[in-house]
C-alpha cells in the first residue's frame, strides 16, 4: 500500500511537471535476462532528476522525455543500461545480472570490501563452485579449492577436519566459522545449497577483527538472500549411491588354517571343518552400497525495499559401512526490510540431524574386527543368544563379529540446531551508520545407545545396556558497530568501523547409563546399575574492535585495526589481550603508466598483525578436586575425593604474529588471473596440556595446561586461473597449491621431548612428539634396516646376552651404537602434516552441456598405518594380510627365504610393538574428487513453465592415485586432536559415489 501511495505521489508530481515541458511520454517494460518482469527498477533521464520506477509487472511510464535524452535503467544486482530515446515511445529494457559485481565484493569481518581494496590474504569459493559438486557438508566445498586449506573428511554426519595454513597451535586447530556474522561451532546444520559464498580469511590483517577467536583463520559463510525482482522458485535434487571398493587382501580359510598351524602352532582345522570350511569375507559383510538422496526447495523474491528467501532441504545419506548414515532436515529463511533510513533484517536456520555413527566394540573399529576375524566362522548362529556366531577359546582368535557389533542394538545421535540473527542498521548521517546485531547458535543433542544381550562364545553380555547423553549448548553474540564511510576530494576514501562485541556461551549435559538383566525389549533407561553425571559450563568474552581503511583513488591502500579482548577462560591477571594489524596495498594496474598494458589487475599487498587463542576448556586456570573416585569397603561404596587438575593461575593468551605478502595479477581483462601469497607465522606461548611427569601422579589425566611453546610456520600459496570463450565453447581452469611447514622453536624447560600422541593399539608405543627444531607432533621411533638373516648378524649388533631377538626379526638401527635398542635410538621417522596441498578445477561448457572435473591432493605426508599391526604383526593368531605369506621362515637359526619382506611370526616383541618405520607410509595422494557432466534443457515447451532445467550426472572420488597401502589415504584424526593426525586405525574410508541430479528454476 505504502508503495502505491509513493507511486501515486510520484506520478502526480511528474504529471505536474509534464504540463510545463513540451515533450513526450515513454512507456515500456523492464525484464531480467530470463524475461521475468522486474518491479521496482529505476528509470531515469540521464543527467536529470526526472525518474520513475517500474510497477509490479515491470511496466513504467515516464513523461517529459526529449528525443535527445538518454534513459538509464538500473536495478540492484544487475548491470545498468543506457538507451538513447530518439523517436521511440516504447522502450523495453533487459537488465542482465551483474555476476561480476558480486564476485568483486569480498565478505570480510564486519562488512564487505571491493576485491580491489583487499589488502590481506583471502580465498573465496562462490555458489557456482559449491553447486558444481553435490556435497553434503559445506566444509567439503573448500577442499582443493581454497589454497592452503586442508580438509579431511570422515564418516557421514561427522564434521571434516579443516586446517588453514598448517598447524600453528597444539590444541584445537579448527578455524572460526562465521555464518552471516554468527559465530558457529561447525557448519553441519547448513545445507550447501543455501550458501552464496565462502571466504577464507588467512592472515592477521583479515582475521584480526575476530582477534581472540581467529587464531586458526576464519571461514566466513554468506548465505543466499532474496534479490529484488520476480520471485524465484528453485528445486534441486539428486540421488546416488556410494560404496567403498577397496579391500585389504586377507587370508582365506585354507590359507588361514595353514598359517595358524605353521606360524602359531595352532591347529584350527577342526574348527574350520565344524563350520564346513566356509569362507566368510568379513570386509564384504561390513561394507554396503549406500543410497544418497537430497531434495532442496527454495524461494526468493524482493522489492526495492525488501528481500526474502526461504529454503528447505531433506538429505539422506546411507554410509558405506553397514548401519551408518546421516539424515538432515534443514529450513532457512532470510529477510531484510528497508524503512527509510532504517534497515531491519534477520536470518534463521533450523536443522534436525540424525546420525548413525560407526559402532565400535572394545575400542576397536569395525574394520579392525573385520580384518582380524577368522574366515571360517559363519556370521550367524541361531543357537546363540542374539543369533550371531563368534569366536571361542579353541579359535585362539577373539576378534568380535563385526556384523554383530554393527547390527545389534543401535546408536542414534539426534541434533536440533538453530542458528539465527536479527539486526537493525540505521543511517544516522551521511555515511555514518549504526548497526546492532544479536545472533544465536543453539543446539540440543540426544545420543542414545542401546545394546541387547548376547552370548557368542568368547563375547558375552548377559544384559542389555542403555546409555544416553543429552547436551545443550548456546552461544549468543551481541555486536554493536558504528561505521563511517566517506570520500573527500574525490580521491580520499575513508572507512572507519568500531565494534563492541560480547559473546556468552553455555553448555550443559546429562549423561546416564543403565543395564537390564530381565529383558531386551526395553531400550530405555532403567533404575538398575545406573551411571549418572551432568556438567555445566559457561564462557564469556568481551571485545572492543576498531578498523580504519584508507585509500587514495583505490591506488594506495592502507588498513589498520586493533582489538582488545577479554576471555573468562583466563585468570584475572591475564584476562585481557590486545591484538592489532596493519596492512598496505598498491594497485599498480590503476597507475596511469599502466593504462594501456595487458594488466587488468596488478596489486601488491603486505600485512602483519597479531591474533590470540583462548580455545581451551573452561575454568582451566583454577585448581580443582576430582570427586569421582570410588572404592568398596565391603558392601559400602566409599566415595573418594582427591586432587584433580593442578591449578595454573598464570595461563594466558596464546599469541600469533602473522606476516603476509601478496601479489594479485589479472591479465587481458581478467582472462588470466593469479594470486601469490607468502606468509610467515610466529606463535608464542602456545597452550598445551603438558603431560606432567607420571611420577608426580597428579590426577585428571596427569596433564596441566601451560603456555609452553613457540613455533613458526612458513609457507606460500599460488592460485592461477584462466578462462576463455570460443563461440559456443567456454572453459575455465583454476589451480592452486599451498605449502606450509612448521617447526617448534622453543619449549619450556622440563617439557622438552614430550611424547604426546595416543597409542593406536593396545601394546603399541606412543610416538607423536614435541621437540625443538622439529615439526609439531612428528613421528618419533626406530629406523629399520631389513631382517636379521642369522644368529651371527644378531650377535654382531646386540651381543650374546639377550636371547629375545633372533634370526628373522627386524633389525632396528642402533643409532647410538651402544649395543642395545632403546629409546635413545629413536629419531624422526615421519611428519603427519603435508608439505603441499593442491587442487585443480576445470569447467567447460558447450552449448547446453556443462562439465566439471576437480582434483585435489596432498603431497609429502606421512601416515602411521596402524592397520599393519593387524595385517602383518603376527604376534598372536588373527586373520592377517596375504603379505604374511612372504614372512621370514627360520630353520636352524637361519632365515631360509632371504627375500622375505616381513619378519618371522611370533618373533621379538619389538617387531610389532616398537613405533618404527615399519608402520610409516607415504600418504600422498591425488584424488579426482568430482567429475560432473550436465545438460540444460532448452526448447519452448520448457521455457513456458521453467526458467531453467538442468540434468547432471556426477561421480566422486572415482580415481585416487596413491602409494598408500591402506584403504584410504585421507585419514580422519583418531580423536580430533592435532596430536593424533595421520594415524590410520581403520577409520571410515571415503566412498566412491555416483549421483544423478536435477536443478529446476521456475
Amino acid at each position, binding site marked *: 500500500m505504502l508503495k502505491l501511495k509513493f507511486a501515486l505521489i510520484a506520478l502526480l508530481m511528474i504529471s505536474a511537471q509534464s504540463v510545463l515541458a513540451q515533450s513526450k511520454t515513454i512507456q515500456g517494460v523492464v525484464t531480467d535476462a530470463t524475461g521475468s518482469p522486474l518491479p521496482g527498477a529505476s528509470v531515469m533521464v540521464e543527467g536529470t532528476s526526472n525518474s520513475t520506477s517500474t510497477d509490479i509487472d515491470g511496466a513504467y511510464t515516464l513523461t517529459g522525455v526529449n528525443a535527445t535524452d538518454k534513459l538509464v535503467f538500473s536495478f540492484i544486482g544487475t548491470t545498468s543500461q543506457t538507451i538513447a530515446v530518439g523517436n521511440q515511445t516504447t522502450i523495453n529494457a533487459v537488465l542482465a545480472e551483474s555476476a561480476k559485481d558480486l564476485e568483486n565484493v569480498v565478505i570480510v569481518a564486519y562488512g564487505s570490501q571491493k576485491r580491489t581494496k583487499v589488502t590481506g590474504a583471502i580465498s573465496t569459493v562462490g555458489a557456482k563452485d559449491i553447486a558444481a559438486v553435490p556435497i553434503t557438508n559445506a566444509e567439503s566445498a573448500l577442499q582443493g579449492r581454497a589454497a592452503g586449506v586442508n580438509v579431511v573428511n570422515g564418516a557421514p554426519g561427522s564434521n571434516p577436519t579443516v586446517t588453514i595454513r598448517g598447524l600453528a597451535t597444539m590444541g584445537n586447530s579448527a578455524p572460526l566459522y562465521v555464518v552471516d556474522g554468527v559465530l558457529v561451532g561447525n557448519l553441519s546444520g547448513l545445507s550447501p545449497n543455501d550458501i552464496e559464498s565462502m571466504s577464507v580469511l588467512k592472515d592477521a590483517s583479515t582475521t584480526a577483527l575476530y582477534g581472540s577467536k581467529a587464531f586458526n583463520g576464519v571461514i566466513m559463510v554468506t548465505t543466499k538472500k532474496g534479490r529484488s525482482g520476480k520471485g524465484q522458485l528453485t528445486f534441486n535434487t539428486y540421488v546416488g549411491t556410494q560404496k567403498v571398493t577397496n579391500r585389504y587382501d586377507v587370508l582365506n580359510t585354507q590359507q588361514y588354517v595353514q598359517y595358524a598351524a605353521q606360524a602359531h602352532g595352532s591347529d584350527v582345522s577342526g574348527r574350520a571343518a565344524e563350520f564346513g570350511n566356509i569362507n566368510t569375507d568379513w570386509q564384504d559383510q561390513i561394507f554396503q552400497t549406500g543410497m544418497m538422496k537430497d531434495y532442496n526447495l527454495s524461494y526468493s523474491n524482493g522489492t526495492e525495499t525488501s528481500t526474502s528467501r526461504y529454503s528447505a532441504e531433506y538429505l539422506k545419506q546411507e554410509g558405506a559401512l553397514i548401519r551408518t548414515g546421516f539424515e538432515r532436515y534443514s529450513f532457512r529463511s532470510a529477510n531484510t526490510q528497508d524503512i527509510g533510513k*532504517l534497515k531491519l533484517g534477520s536470518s534463521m536456520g533450523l536443522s534436525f540431524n540424525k546420525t548413525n555413527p560407526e559402532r565400535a566394540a572394545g575400542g576397536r573399529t569395525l574394520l579392525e574386527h573385520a580384518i582380524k576375524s577368522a574366515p571360517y566362522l559363519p556370521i550367524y548362529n541361531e543357537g546363540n543368544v542374539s543369533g550371531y556366531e563368534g569366536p571361542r577359546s579353541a579359535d585362539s582368535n577373539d576378534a568380535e563379529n563385526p556384523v554383530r557389533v554393527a547390527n545389534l542394538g543401535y546408536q542414534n545421535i539426534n541434533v536440533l540446531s538453530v542458528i539465527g540473527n536479527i539486526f*537493525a542498521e540505521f543511517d544516522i548521517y551521511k555515511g555514518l551508520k549504526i548497526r546492532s546485531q544479536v545472533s544465536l547458535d543453539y543446539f540440543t543433542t540426544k545420543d542414545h545407545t542401546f545394546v541387547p544381550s548376547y552370548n557368542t562364545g*568368547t563375547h558375552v553380555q*548377559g544384559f542389555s545396556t542403555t546409555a544416553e547423553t543429552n547436551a545443550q549448548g548456546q552461544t549468543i553474540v551481541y555486536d*554493536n558497530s558504528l561505521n563511517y564511510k566517506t570520500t573527500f576530494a574525490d580521491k580520499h576514501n575513508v572507512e572507519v568501523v568500531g565494534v563492541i562485541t560480547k559473546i556468552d556461551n553455555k553448555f550443559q549435559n546429562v549423561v546416564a547409563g543403565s543395564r537390564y538383566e530381565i529383558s531386551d525389549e526395553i531400550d530405555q533407561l532403567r533404575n538398575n546399575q545406573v551411571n549418572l553425571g551432568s556438567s555445566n559450563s559457561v564462557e564469556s568474552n568481551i571485545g572492543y574492535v576498531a578498523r580504519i581503511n584508507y585509500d587514495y583513488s583505490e591506488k594506495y591502500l592502507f588498513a589498520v585495526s586493533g582489538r582488545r579482548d577479554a576471555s573468562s577462560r583466563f585468570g584475572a591477571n591475564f584476562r585481557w589481550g590486545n591484538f592489532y594489524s596493519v596492512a598496505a596495498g598498491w594497485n599498480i594496474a590503476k597507475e596511469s603508466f599502466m593504462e594501456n598494458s595487458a594488466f587488468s589487475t596488478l596489486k601488491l599487498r603486505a600485512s602483519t598483525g597479531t591474533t590470540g587463542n583462548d580455545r581451551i576448556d573452561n575454568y582451566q586456570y583454577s585448581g*580443582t578436586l576430582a570427586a569421582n573416585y570410588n*572404592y568398596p569397603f565391603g558392601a559400602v561404596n566409599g566415595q573418594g575425593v582427591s586432587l584433580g587438575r593442578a591449578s595454573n593461575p598464570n595461563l594466558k593468551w596464546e599469541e600469533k604474529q602473522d606476516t603476509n605478502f601478496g601479489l594479485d595479477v589479472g591479465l587481458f581483462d581478467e582472462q588470466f588471473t593469479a594470486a601469490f601469497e607468502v606468509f610467515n607465522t610466529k606463535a608464542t606461548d602456545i597452550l598445551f596440556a603438558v603431560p606432567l611427569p607420571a611420577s*608426580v601422579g597428579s590426577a585428571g589425566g596427569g596433564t596441566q595446561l601451560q603456555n609452553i611453546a613457540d613455533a613458526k610456520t612458513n609457507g606460500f600459496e599460488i592460485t592461477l586461473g584462466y578462462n576463455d570463450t570460443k563461440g559456443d565453447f567456454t572453459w575455465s581452469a583454476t589451480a592452486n597449491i599451498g605449502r606450509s611447514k612448521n617447526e617448534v622453536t622453543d619449549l619450556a624447560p622440563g617439557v622438552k621431548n614430550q611424547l604426546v600422541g595416543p597409542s593406536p593399539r593396545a601394546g603399541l608405543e*606412543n610416538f607423536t612428539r614435541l621437540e625443538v627444531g622439529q615439526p609439531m607432533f612428528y613421528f618419533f621411533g626406530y629406523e629399520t634396516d631389513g631382517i636379521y638373516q642369522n644368529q651371527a648378524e644378531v650377535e654382531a649388533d646386540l651381543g650374546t646376552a639377550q636371547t629375545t631377538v633372533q634370526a628373522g626379526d627386524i633389525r632396528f638401527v642402533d643409532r647410538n651404537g651402544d649395543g642395545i635398542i632403546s629409546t635413545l635410538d629413536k629419531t624422526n621417522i615421519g611428519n603427519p602434516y603435508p608439505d603441499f596441498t593442491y587442487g585443480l578445477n576445470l569447467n567447460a561448457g558447450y552449448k547446453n552441456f556443462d562439465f566439471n572435473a576437480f582434483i585435489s591432493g596432498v603431497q609429502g605426508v606421512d601416515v602411521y598405518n596402524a592397520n599393519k599391526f593387524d595385517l602383518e*604383526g603376527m604376534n598372536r593368531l588373527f586373520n592377517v594380510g596375504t603379505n604374511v605369506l612372504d614372512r621370514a621362515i627360520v630353520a636352524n637359526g637361519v632365515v631360509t627365504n632371504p627375500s622375505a619382506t616381513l619378519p618371522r611370526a611370533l618373533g621379538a616383541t619389538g617387531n610389532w610393538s616398537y613405533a618404527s618405520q615399519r608402520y610409516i607410509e607415504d600418504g600422498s595422494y591425488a584424488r579426482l574428487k568430482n567429475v560432473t557432466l550436465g545438460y540444460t534443457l532448452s526448447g519452448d515447451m520448457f521455457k513456458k513453465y521453467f526458467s531453467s532445467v538442468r540434468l547432471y550426472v556426477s561421480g566422486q572420488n572415482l580415481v585416487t592415485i596413491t602409494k598408500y597401502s591402506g584403504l584410504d589415504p585421507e585419514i580422519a584424526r583418531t580423536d580430533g586432536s592435532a596430536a593424533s593426525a595421520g594415524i590410520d586405525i581403520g577409520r571410515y574410508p571415503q566412498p566412491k559415489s555416483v549421483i544423478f541430479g536435477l536443478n529446476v528454476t521456475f
Partner: protein
Amino acid sequence: MMRKIKYTIVVLSGIFLINSCDTKDLELTNPNELSPETFFSTPAQVESSVNATYANLQTIGLYSRNYFFAMDLMGHDALGNPQLEGNKQPFQNFSFNSGSDIIQFYWESCFTGISRANFVLDNAEKINSLPESILSTARKNKYLGEAHFMRAYYYFLLVKRFGDLPIYSTGTIEGAARSPKAEVYALIEADFTFAAQNLLSKNDEQTGRATKEAAYAHLGKVLLYQEKYDQALAALNQVTGFSLEPAGSFYNNFMEETEHGVESIFEIEFNEDLGTGNMWDASSNSQGTGFAESTLRGQEYGNLSWYNVYPSDDLLDEFEAGDNRFDDTFYTPGSTYLPGGTATMTADNFATAAGNRRAGFKKYQNYYRRLDEGMQSSINFRVMRYADVLLMKAECENKRAGGSQAAAIAYITEVRTRAGLTTNINPTPADVFAAIVHERKVEFAGEQIRFDDIIRWGIAGTELAGTGFQVGKSELWPIPDRETSSNPNITPANNNPGY
C-alpha cells in the same frame, strides 16, 4: 516518518541495553568441581580424601587387569595361551621394554596413589585443626595412618619392580630424580610404622580398610625383603587374632561370600554391584576414576571364558601327591563346578588352538557359583593372608642369626597340615629354606607372589633359566618412556641396566 525514527531509536537503545558489556560476566566459578581451598572442613571430606587413595588399587594397571597377568607370567605360575594379548606376552619371556603400556599403567597407578596419599598428608594440619567434637584425635590419626599405609603400599609395589625411585613425600608437579632403593625402603618402613601405631584393629575398623594388623604384616614383609630378619619377625609377631581357614576350607580364601575371613589380613576390594560403568574408560588405566568396581581376573584366566593363560607344567608338577590344595587351585578335566558341583568339566573345556591344556586356574574364578564370568568379578584379592605371615615367620627363623629351625618347621607344618600333608623336614638351614621355597610356590600359586620371592632370594636366574630371563636386567622393569619423556630429572640414560 518521525514516529518511525523514534521507534527505531527505542529498538536500538533496547538492543544496546541488553548488550551492556559487564565485565563481571568474566568472573566465573566452576560449578562442576570442588575447590581445594575449602576442603577438609568436615569428617566426611577427610574420609573421602582417604578413600581416594584406595581407588587406585582397582586400575587396569593394577588389580583390575594387568597386575595378575604380569606377575603370574613372570613367575611362570601361568603361561600364555595363543590368544593372550600382545602387550602381555612379553612378560613370560622378559622381552618388555620402556614403551610397554602395562609398565606405564603400573607406574602411573602407583604414583597417582602416592600423590593422593600426599594430598591427605599435606593437609594434616587442616585435619588436625578440626575440633575434637567433630573428629576425635584417634580417628584423625587413623585417617592419617591409612594415608601412610597406602603410600607405603604403592611405594612397595614400585620399589620391587623398579629399584631406585623418585621420592615424593609431599605433593608437587615437579618431577624428582631417582633416589637409592634404600631411601625408598626407609620411607616405606616409616610409613608402615606410623600406620601400625595409629590404625585401628580389624575388629574395630570398617571392612576393607587398612588395619593395624595389615600394617604390621606389611612392615614385616618389607623388612624381610631387606633381610632385616629380627625386626621382621618382631613386626610379624604383632599380627594377632588371625588363623588359617580350617582344613577343607582353603577355598574360602578365593570366593566372594567368604571375604575377610579369619585368614585374611588385607584385601583388594571389588564389588560389581556398586557399578562397573567406567571399566573401559581410558581413565581406568591408571586413575581409578568413576565406577569400575570389578576385576577381569576371572574372565581373563577362566578356562570357560577367555582362558588367556593356563597353569604351567612346572607349577602343576610342584604339588605333592595328596596336597589337597591342588583341587582348590586348579580345574582339571573331571572337576565339578556350579553350586553343589552339578556340572563337570571335560577335556574339551581345556581346548586351545595349541592343543588341550592340563588345567585352568580355579582360585578367584566364579565358576563355583555361575556359568560364565561375565567380564566382571567381585572376588577380592587376598593380598595378605595369615599363611603368608606364617611362612614369612618361618623364613625369619630360618635366616636370622640365632634363629630356630624347629620354630621354622613348626610354622611350615601349620600350613602343610591344613593342606592334608605330613611334614618331614631335615632341620638344616638349607633344607628348611628349600621347604619354604616349595611351600610358598604351591600355597600361593597364582597369587602373584612367586616372582617377588625368587627375585629377592636371588634364584630367578636358575628358576627361570631358558625363559628369556636375563640376570642383571630382568629383575627390574624399565622406567616407562612416559616418565623419561616428561620428567627432566629422569632421562632415558638413567634407565635400569639393559633397557
